């Protein structure tokens, strides 16, 4: 790798990291806009604090815990602090395609992911959990739980050894986060004022819709960094094309989710619902995150309207798999798993189950819930089905053997109705937020 390539990759990763950091503002605005006015200040405080704590804890302990130079054993990584040294110019030029960007840039990109993951819990326990309890949990979650599990599957631990595939971070990032969220929700019960004395639910409409809309736009923009940056390198034609495709797919997914949700509301209730539309966009974004590079890739000339894929990220993906890349690459896909916790009895279980079993459980559960989501996972070295995210085009198998062996693949709903329902019902649940807020007059 030449110096200029290294520089471009580093710059690209940093810009993307800044965009992902920006998502923290998006979550904050979204939640502040959707909670009742009386809880605004609390939710603001929670969100700024969680971002800050996540950054500090992951820096202080998490990063070394997750990627130790050498783990103590397959279960316990050993304790470490701070970051490692960055690459020297000599090492970079000597390394060929092994070292592609600055280690600091990698940390930067990873640390904003931790904060994003923590937001799942935040949204779910909004208006329910005491501030300091929440912050204490944030410390443990971002400093120990998240990185410890990360070590098991990504940093060299036993899951890593048995070929556990958690490319998307569904098990680590989301199952843990969502389990915590679920536990919190079960523990804390519904918000006061949510039910009348005779048990009817009340709508608790949000306080500030322009703020929520702004939050959605911020997230949309930030997601370009989240997905786009997960390619990790951009310095050759193949990678650059991939990044561009990721941008296009991310944008289309959000747009499709938004329109689908808007139409669903229209069909169901006979009118538009802004909050549904916002949730739809976020659902689209979350969905496409599972496979942004393959959502819509390119239409070979003459196969119009097929709208399908033929994904060949060849060079890039291949080359990348060589170097030590600080694991961020495995973070590429945020599996749409805000509700994954439902399958999980506890964090320990994350480790205990094999990938395949896990998948089946999830499929069954999700199918039950929405009646439409059928999923399939490719497994290492095998050709698989492609993630579509928006569901706007029909599926097609693509033969990818050897190119991106650990990519997690998801088959999505086939029909328009299904897509609509999915965007509408799964999206909010997945984000782990959204279903839990609102209200005009409540407790003084």
């Amino acid at each position, binding site marked *: 790798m030449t110096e200029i390539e290294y520089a471009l990759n580093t710059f690209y990763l940093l810009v993307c990291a800044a965009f992902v950091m920006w998502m923290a503002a998006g979550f904050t605005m979204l939640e502040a806009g959707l909670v009742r006015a009386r809880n605004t200040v609390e939710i603001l405080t929670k969100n700024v604090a969680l971002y800050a704590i996540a950054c500090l804890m992951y820096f202080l302990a998490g990063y070394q815990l997750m990627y130790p130079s050498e783990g103590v054993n397959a279960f316990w990584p050993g304790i470490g602090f701070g970051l490692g040294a960055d690459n020297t110019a000599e090492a970079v030029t000597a390394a060929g395609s092994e070292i592609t960007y600055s280690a600091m840039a990698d940390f930067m990109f990873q640390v904003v992911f931790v904060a994003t993951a923590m937001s799942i819990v935040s949204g779910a326990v909004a208006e329910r959990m005491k501030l300091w309890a929440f912050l204490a949990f944030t410390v443990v979650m971002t400093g120990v739980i998240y990185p410890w599990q990360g070590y098991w599957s990504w940093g060299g631990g036993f899951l890593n050894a048995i070929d556990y595939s958690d490319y998307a971070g569904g098990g680590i990032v989301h199952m843990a986060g969502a389990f915590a969220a679920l536990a919190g929700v079960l523990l804390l019960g519904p918000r006061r004022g949510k039910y009348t004395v005779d048990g009817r639910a009340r709508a608790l*409409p949000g306080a500030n819709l322009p703020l929520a809309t702004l939050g959605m736009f911020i997230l949309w923009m930030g997601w370009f960094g989240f997905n786009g940056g997960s390619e990790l390198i951009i310095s050759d034609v193949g990678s650059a094309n991939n990044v561009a495709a990721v941008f296009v797919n991310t944008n289309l997914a959000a747009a499709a989710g938004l329109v689908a949700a808007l139409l669903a509301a229209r069909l169901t209730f006979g009118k538009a*619902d802004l909050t549904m539309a916002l949730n739809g966009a976020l659902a689209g974004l979350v969905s496409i995150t599972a496979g942004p590079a393959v959502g819509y890739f390119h239409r070979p000339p003459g196969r119009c309207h097929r709208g399908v894929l033929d994904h060949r990220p060849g060079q890039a993906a291949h080359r990348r798999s060589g170097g030590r890349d600080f694991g961020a690459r495995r973070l590429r896909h945020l599996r749409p798993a805000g509700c994954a916790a439902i399958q999980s009895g506890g964090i320990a279980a994350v480790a205990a189950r094999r990938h395949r079993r896990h998948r089946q459980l999830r499929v069954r559960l999700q199918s039950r819930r929405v009646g439409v989501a059928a999923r399939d996972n490719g497994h290492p070295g095998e050709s698989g089905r492609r993630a579509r995210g928006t569901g706007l085009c029909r599926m097609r198998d693509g033969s990818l053997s050897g190119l991106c062996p650990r990519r997690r693949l998801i088959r999505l709903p086939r029909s328009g109705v299904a897509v609509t329902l999915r965007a509408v019902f799964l999206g909010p649940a997945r984000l782990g937020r959204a279903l839990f*807020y609102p209200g005009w007059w409540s407790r003084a």
Partner: protein
Amino acid sequence: MKLITAIIKPFKLDDVREALADAGIQGMTVSETRGFGRQKGHTELYRGAEYVVDFLPKIKIEIAVASEDAERVIETITEIARSGRIGDGKIFVTELERVVRIRTGEVNESAI
């Protein structure tokens, strides 16, 4: 003196104010309220759930007037604020024992 309290639809405020000014009424105090009555609220959507907005935005106008002007003021408001549709509002009249103008300390009729 009388204290006339009128609950009207918000979009009628400007018209009412001007009509009252023409009728020689110098002052009034206005606040935003929400009304509940025969006029039913509408349903709104929020995150995929419908809910009813019971309370409709209304404007409350309070006017202190000399007893002899009360009739005229009530008539003016009734006429101008009327749209003929449900929800046009109400006028309440109560007896005012005393009015004080804070700036001068004047009381009653001369304070209005």
